[in-house]
């Protein structure tokens, strides 16, 4: 049969204009890897409000959005900036109660996405039991997401998790075609279940390839075109986080970010300088040292970093 012939390539600004305030956005980043920075910046420029974010392991993406005050609720398994530090803005917002944080574990959040992706409204799990993580979910707004039951076949005690179905899933990939077929190199953490659980999927890709390239290894297609609403082509779009096979994390900029993120006032400076006072990703990259600087981060093909 013929291939789908639809060009879904759009700019980050165009795509973000279609995301309403109050949306539940699932983020595809992990700590300091494959964060959807270019879309996060645009969400901040367009000052979206009252967002719910979900993610197994938060990174700079979530920290930026919370630090910019766009977020009212989190559903997360954990988070850090690896050796560079903690998710300071997120933790501050939790401490002050600025955000409601539903804390899970990596697997329980991933099971929630899996249930969403499979179209089953609940799924059993043996994690979280006998922990304060579950106590806190059951004691607060998380209560509507968990139940306990016994397996009717084995009698074993289970926790039931409500399916997670984000309004929008954002995932940064290495390779996609103009129709949205995309490939992820390296580990994929929760990206496949997360994207397939969502009502809308937005892909940010480092490289745009002809569909013929996708057809050469269809086993590698992690998210097929018909699940993808838009494709944003943005080289270095995850900077300063790493994209396996494309470029390494930017240690200098991550340190600079952490210095700002630790203090509310300085965080505002960071957002002014690198987000609000830049019009797009090229201008942002320019301020971080420009192509000359980021090209130094480019990966060696054999090693992928």
């Amino acid at each position, binding site marked *: *049969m*013929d*291939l*789908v*012939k*639809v060009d879904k390539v759009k700019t980050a600004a165009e795509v973000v204009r279609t995301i309403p305030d109050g949306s539940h956005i699932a983020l595809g980043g992990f700590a300091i890897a494959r964060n959807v920075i270019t879309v996060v910046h645009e969400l901040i420029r367009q000052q979206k409000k009252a967002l719910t974010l979900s993610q197994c392991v938060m990174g700079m993406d979530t920290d930026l959005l919370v630090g910019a005050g766009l977020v009212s609720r989190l559903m997360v398994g954990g988070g850090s900036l690896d050796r560079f530090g903690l998710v300071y803005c997120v933790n501050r917002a939790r401490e002050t109660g600025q955000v409601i944080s539903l804390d899970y574990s990596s697997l329980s959040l991933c099971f929630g996405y899996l249930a969403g*992706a*499979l*179209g*089953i409204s609940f799924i059993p799990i043996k994690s979280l039991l006998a922990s304060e993580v579950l106590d806190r979910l059951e004691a607060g707004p998380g209560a509507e997401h968990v139940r306990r039951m016994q397996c009717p076949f084995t009698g074993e005690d289970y926790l039931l998790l409500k399916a997670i179905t984000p309004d929008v899933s954002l995932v940064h990939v290495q390779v996609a075609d103009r*129709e949205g*077929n995309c490939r992820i190199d390296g580990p994929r953490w929760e990206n496949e279940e997360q994207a*397939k659980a969502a009502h809308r999927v937005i892909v940010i890709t480092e490289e745009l390839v002809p*569909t013929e390239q*996708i*057809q050469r290894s*269809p*086993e590698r*297609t992690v998210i*097929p*075109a*018909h*699940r993808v609403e838009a494709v944003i082509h943005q080289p270095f779009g995850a900077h300063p986080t790493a994209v396996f096979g494309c470029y390494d994390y930017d240690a200098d900029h991550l340190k600079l970010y952490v210095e700002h993120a630790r203090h509310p006032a300085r965080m505002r400076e960071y957002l002014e300088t690198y987000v609000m006072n830049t019009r797009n990703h090229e201008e942002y990259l320019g301020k971080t040292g420009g192509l000359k600087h980021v090209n130094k981060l480019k990966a060696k093909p054999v090693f992928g970093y």
Partner: protein
Amino acid sequence: MKEVRATEIMAAAGAKQLRDGEVIVVGLGLPQVAAVLAKRTHAPGLTSLLEIGVVNMNPVDTPVGLADSRIFYGGTSWSGFLDILGMNLHRGIVDVGFLGALEVDRYGNINTTLLKDDAGKVRYFNGSAGGNDVASLAKRVIIIMRHEKRKLPMTVAHLTSPGFAGGKSRRELGLRGGGPHRVITDKALLGFDPDTHAASLLSLHPGVRLEEVVENTGFPLQIPKDLQATPLPSPDELRLLREEIDPKGVYLG
């Protein structure tokens, strides 16, 4: 131009049921031909899925079945049952599912499991495979089959894949999918009454007499006052079917 075959009318009728941008689960044969015809005409953005894990296959040689490597060719994604039937069909994003059948009854229930002879002796066939899943979960189910009295009984010998079982609504049955939408045979196009959920005659293929259809249907058919004729494929559709999509007449012959 040679006479239009019933299979060509069926393929064109199947294509007309598909809208641009829809996601469909196809089987081998006429459903695939109908899908390609729709893609080449009014629905270029159609996505075709095979239950075993193939998206948008584009075969250049004729497969003998779903397990034939020829049908994998040109696919943009190769996965498995869990992805296609789970993360697409069960997820609720499949608009149309095409199904064949040993038997279909007046409520669009499908039997692909077994037949009984007059002595009550049972003969087994293929069973459900993905059929029950598609019938339970697709938004619209389109059945393509030959129009014979024994294949269209009042009640199926085995209810493998539910339509409007017992004349009940899908909601009453606790099923998510919309259920049977059309039955496309070599004689006519059937639909289902929104209230009674019983099969009704929508149109007769050109040259087919009403009596012929009634005699070859094992259950009472609702006959509308304004009985239409199934439109013939357009010259362009015929050209595509005969010259590009199935030039060897493997499925249309």
